[in-house]
């Protein structure tokens, strides 16, 4: 894949609205000449910050739902101070954007089909992949907390939905009650011996379950990981993921890979799951 040079630009808020009880969609119009021909590959993210003197010490990493030229869209959830400030931005407000950053989900061979699994705010990269690269055999699975948490308007096409709590399901919609990975495991459409590749993003337990399922079925699996980030472009080493590496010179059998630059997409079998997201708070 040809790398798209990341850019730094101001973006004006076109729309910033909830698309479910927990998720918001932010649509921006980028300014400046360098953003005229910008774009992204599904799986990439951007650092979004308030401009000038209002800026947080670090931007907030948001995965890209779509980016074509000056128009870029994100889905995000309010999880702290930074995203709470983003949620308050009105139409016309300016934000700083640095992106697209990181690597992307792979494109698949002609004889492969995608199993896309998105959990909550992990939806954008897999939804972007389906919109950009999807073919008739690809299938999308989204897991939400309940019917109100599901961004139904963003799930057009080949999506099946699961919910942890079977409530607030809108009339005319259907949802599996249980874990999204259980929905995938029980889907009879996936029971044949076809070559499939799991592309997934969401909470860590979901990613682990997806990786296990893929391993059981003999499918390749790519996970898009989430970490608190400092810089977003590989310089601060603040967002590392332990990945298996026999050749690592420290002799520890693993090394710390930056989530922002080497990731956020990793092959599931690369990730040292017992050390990722499971570190004790000392």
């Amino acid at each position: 894949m040809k790398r798209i040079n990341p850019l730094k630009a101001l973006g004006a808020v076109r729309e910033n609205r909830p698309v479910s009880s927990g998720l918001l969609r932010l649509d921006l119009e980028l300014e400046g000449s360098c953003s005229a021909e910008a774009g992204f590959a599904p799986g990439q993210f951007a650092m979004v910050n308030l401009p000038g003197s209002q800026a947080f010490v670090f931007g907030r990493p948001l995965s890209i739902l779509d980016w074509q030229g000056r128009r870029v869209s994100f889905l995000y959830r309010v999880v702290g101070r930074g995203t709470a400030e983003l949620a308050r931005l009105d139409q016309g407000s300016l934000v700083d954007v640095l992106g697209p950053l990181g690597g992307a989900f792979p494109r698949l061979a002609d004889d492969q089909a995608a199993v896309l699994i998105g959990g909550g705010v992990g939806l954008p990269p897999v939804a972007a992949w389906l919109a950009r690269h999807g073919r008739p055999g690809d299938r999308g699975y989204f897991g939400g907390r309940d019917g109100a948490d599901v961004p139904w308007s963003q799930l057009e096409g080949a999506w099946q939905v699961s919910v942890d709590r079977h409530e607030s399901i809108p009339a005319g919609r259907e949802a599996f009650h249980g874990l999204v990975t259980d929905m995938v495991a029980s889907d009879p459409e996936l029971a044949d011996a076809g070559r499939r590749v799991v592309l997934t993003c969401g909470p860590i337990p979901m990613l682990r379950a997806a990786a296990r399922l893929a391993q059981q079925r003999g499918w390749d699996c790519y996970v898009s990981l989430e970490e608190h980030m400092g810089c977003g472009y590989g310089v601060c080493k603040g967002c590392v993921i332990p990945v298996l590496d026999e050749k690592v010179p420290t002799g520890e059998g693993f090394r710390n890979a930056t989530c922002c630059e080497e990731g956020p997409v990793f092959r599931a079998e690369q990730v040292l799951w017992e050390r990722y997201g499971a570190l004790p708070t000392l």
Partner: protein
Amino acid sequence: MSLPAWWTTDVCAPFTLGPRRFPGRIWTASGCFAYGLSGHDMRTDGFATPYEGIGAVVTKTVTPAPRSGNPMPRLCELPTGAINSIGLENVGYEAFLAEVLPQLEDRGVPTVVSLAATRPEEFGTMCAALQEAAAGYRHWHGVEINLSCPNVAEGGHDFGRDPDTVALCVDAARSQLPDRALLAKLTPNVTDIAGLAAAAGEAGADAVSAINTVVGLDVDLNTGQPVLPRRYGGYSGPGVLPIALAKVDEIVRKTGVPVVGVGGIGSLEDALKFFALGAVAVQVGTAQMRDPFAAAQVAAELSRR
């Protein structure tokens, strides 16, 4: 803002530090721009590259052996800065010399290599290897020895707190660096930073960089425990600016050692405060992590004046 009345230095011209001519006075700080290669292809309106106008990239600190760094979480953001506990993750100086420094030279990036060690003589070993590997390099300007990384258990701190040890480290490096600038980066977590600067200067450092990060801690109220696994980290960002200014002032007033100011610089105004106190150059640190063009922006504004 017009040029301040006190400002007499020709800031756009190259300046001399020890045996080298540096192309500018706005540098990036160690640990905040990696090895200076990540982000090289970033673009924004008004700048050809993030290196435009920069006097030097001070690399992420390199150590005798590769280090995998500290466990996560490594960063803790505060309204006024950040506390980090990266743990000097780096590829080791042999890989750095073989794989990284040649790329910086090829790209024409003015470079100062940051080194850390656990024994003073290792600074000499690494400098000798640098001198051998990069003798003909035009863009490698010098070495900054990191005497003060507060989050390495082996005691970066102890190095930086004792004037005699500082002198040993500087002397070991100086003896192997005949024609490159040598800087010693000092910790602010001491009672007498001027005494350390004087020791570095007497041992042959061309300048000191002040300050490294301030020891800090934050508490996670959900657990009642420190946020960082090693409890303490290095506090940096806008909140340390007045601390850095005070330490730079102390060094300038009490010693004749040239000072490269670092700590909380995110704007031209911040940089000018260090120059007003007598700093010969400044480094942009935490701001460079948010914005790959932060140092280039300060340099551009300075050159417009």
